[in-house]
């Protein structure tokens, strides 16, 4: 920064002394230069901070609102729907078959969302194309079993309080990388306040280092 300022400073000196093309007494060159600098700086600085994140991410609404709080209340816990299979793999977002353990194509409640669910998906035997906030890229092997069963971690540590949400927030996807915004974090610099604000590899490594004394070998979490 200082270098740049120096340059402009000296540039003005240069202009004043050289004075081949301009009137040496005319200061507007410098003044305009500075004004242009400030204006351009502000525009670029602000767009970099404010506009760029908006442009970088595309927003998608979920197929319909999902009331986590209600479902947790009804089923009791997260594991009723998001469970470990018998082979230790994680079931992830429930398939229609799980929903049909309780639901039918007749709505149980009166919400518009459930009506959409019943008519568009249950009746038509289609899986709901949920956007997955916590979706990791293909190169990642994440073992829920290791974290839940072996380390005894709770869901909130990584997923936050999604279980208390009553509506589905829009899914934001990085246009360039296809990553969910939750991976990098809401903050454009990736600064986090809570453990669930960001899910990059560094976050895994930090926790692993703290909990196991070693950040882990590559293959532990990569495939």
């Amino acid at each position, binding site marked *: 920064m200082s270098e*740049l300022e120096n340059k*402009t400073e000296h540039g003005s000196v240069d*202009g004043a002394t050289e004075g081949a093309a301009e009137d040496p007494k005319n200061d507007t*060159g410098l003044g305009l230069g500075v004004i242009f600098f400030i204006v*351009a700086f502000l525009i*670029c*600085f602000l767009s970099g901070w404010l506009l760029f994140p908006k442009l970088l991410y595309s927003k998608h609404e979920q197929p319909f609102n999902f009331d986590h709080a209600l479902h947790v209340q009804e089923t009791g816990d997260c594991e009723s729907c998001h469970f470990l299979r018998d082979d230790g793999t994680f079931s992830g977002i429930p398939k229609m078959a799980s929903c049909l353990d309780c639901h039918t194509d007749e709505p149980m409640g009166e919400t518009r969302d459930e009506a959409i669910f019943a008519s568009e998906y249950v009746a038509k035997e289609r899986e709901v194309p949920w956007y997955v906030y916590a979706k990791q890229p293909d190169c990642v092997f994440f073992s829920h079993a290791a974290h839940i069963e072996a380390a005894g971690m709770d869901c909130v540590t990584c997923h936050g309080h999604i279980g208390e949400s009553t509506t589905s927030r829009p899914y934001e996807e*990085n246009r360039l990388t296809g990553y969910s915004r939750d991976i990098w974090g809401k903050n454009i610099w990736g600064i986090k306040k809570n453990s669930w604000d960001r899910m990059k590899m560094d976050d895994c490594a930090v926790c692993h280092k703290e909990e196991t004394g070693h950040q882990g070998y590559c293959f532990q979490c990569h495939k």
Partner: protein
Amino acid sequence: MKVDRRSFLGLGLGAVAGIAISPVGAKLTDDSSIWTQNWPWTPVPPDGKISYDHSVCSLCPGTCGITVRKIDGRPVKIEGRDTYPVNNGGACLHGIAGLQYLYDPCRVTTPLKKINDRFEPISWKEAIALAAGHLGRIRKNDQAHTLACITDTDQGSVAGLFSHFMTAFGSPNHFVMPTLESWLALTAQTLHGKGYTLGFDLENADFILSFGAGILEGWGSPVACFKANSSRKQRKAKLYQIEHRLSTTAAAADRWIPVTPGTEADLAMAMCGVLLTENLFDSEFAAGFKGGFNRFNAMVQQKYPVEKVAAATGISAADIKKIAIAFARAKMPVAIPGKGRGDGAQSLKEFAAVHTLNCLTGNVNKKGGTFIKPVHDYLAFPDPVLDTAAKDGFGKAKLGASVQEMVTNINQSADPLVTALFVYNANPCYTLNDPSQTRAAFEKIPFVVSFSSFMDETAMASDLILPVSTFLERLEDVPSRAGLANSVVGLTRPVLDPVFDTRSAGDTVIQLAKTLGGDMARSFAWNNYRACLEDVAAGVWEDLSGNGYALLAEGPPTDSVETSFAFLSDNPQTIYPQGDYALTLVPIDNMRLPGTVPAASPFAIKTVSDRVLKGKDVCVEINPDTANGLTDGGFATLTTPTGSARVRVNFNEGIMPGVIGMVKGLGHTFDNKYVAGKGVNIHELISPVIEPGSGLDAACGTTAAISKA
């Protein structure tokens, strides 16, 4: 106010500075690298629940049990099924690559009808109607016997349905492609009577004398053979390999005995002679010898003296005797016939002579010996309803003893001997020697119906294709049929819904018969193939559907059998390589290249050595001693009485001087850039020679010349 360059400088610097301390640079640098990590054109396989399905592979006659791993119902991997009585874990490369066949670029995805030499898609309804219309007319014109049918085997319920169809339709012309099993059955029939086949207890034998049988190149049930070989190494059981080339089997053998190609039958006869002269045959078993044993003895002594055979085979007389004696003195000796994979052109004389060695040792129907097994018919088809047309037609004479003979007869006759032809799971336009003859015969047949999963050479030569689901998409019983000691029938089960608009051939045949109506329909009363299978295989259905297989017979057969020497006593002619060239061209069976149906998968082709296939050129093996003026890796022209081909030369110290080896399974001409258009189909270079006595093609080689191209 003047906007000068200083203003622009300010503008530019401001912009740069503004961007520089915003997150844009860092974020875009990071994101662009992440973009390369997730390029949208690199597929991401969807994850899901893992499940496993048991089934049976029917790509070859080996019939191994397989386990298919699926992700949310989507098959992703085939592996050998543990505790399956044939392969018991482990699988061959073709089975493992089986999923590639599902999505093969050459798959026939819908029924196709040929119009002006081009295939047009039609609906199943139209296709069945078209076939039924054609067949109906034939039948109406009392030409039922002019319908011919070629299948890969005569065993199992689908082949049974074709057979049932032919009988009900009224044609005796159901032909089976020459396979190891068909040769073994013919051998057993020739020596022991109808209804028998041969099995070899390689798992327990302590001395295997192989007459070119490629037990490590796909002979019999490949995985079972590999396992037997491994256990042989542990048991220290001997393997002597008599072959013109250091094949993988020869390399694994305790002894490799190079032999002049085409003289194996003579060698076996001479060895029989040694056993007889040295009185090393089992007199107890000889009690069951019928049909001119003494005549055979005399003939062998006279026609196959060891010295004479030594000159022909290139094996010293002393060695012939030593080997024969070692064989006879072994506790559990087994002699196995069938050069290479044992399919295609072979010689009944050779099979019979080799099996006679087994009979002489008496190690028959004993553990570690040769099993003369009754063909276990676990299927009970109802008798077809025969109307007059059927009775008339079925009573007519068959058009030959083999597909090859039928082809020859069609080509030689001025009359239309065959007016319609079914081909199921066979590719005669590629696998028979001199396939141009087969193609010419097909040209003469007005209506060829191909039941094929792939657009192979035969499908291309047909008029109507009724596409068949692959072994992963269909239900079918698959009896083991490849010289195994045990008799097992497995159940191929659909592990996914058909990817394309294809059906099981069984369903198509039933549908066709129903559409033909009348007594034909009455013979096919089942609603569909599944119902048919449950009905005709009722005896074993519980095991089949429960375990996925049924064990029909285990261990040595207990029946006593008679042995007739009538065929060999007449000293049938040995078929030597034809023509006047100085060298001999012989086909090589390579485990990584299937020779019949289906053609190789892309994975299989990928594993083929660059000493076999280089770019689009096949490499022929030749001993450097024989390679006058040729260079290793260089181009050459290979000429036989039948044709010539441009090939590359591969110097191999492991092949007899005077012999040129060329791999089978290349030179396909269909439209699949991964598999076809590579190398030469060796069958194009060999003309068939019908062996008297068997009626089958016995030309498993030809004379040839090779010169620098």
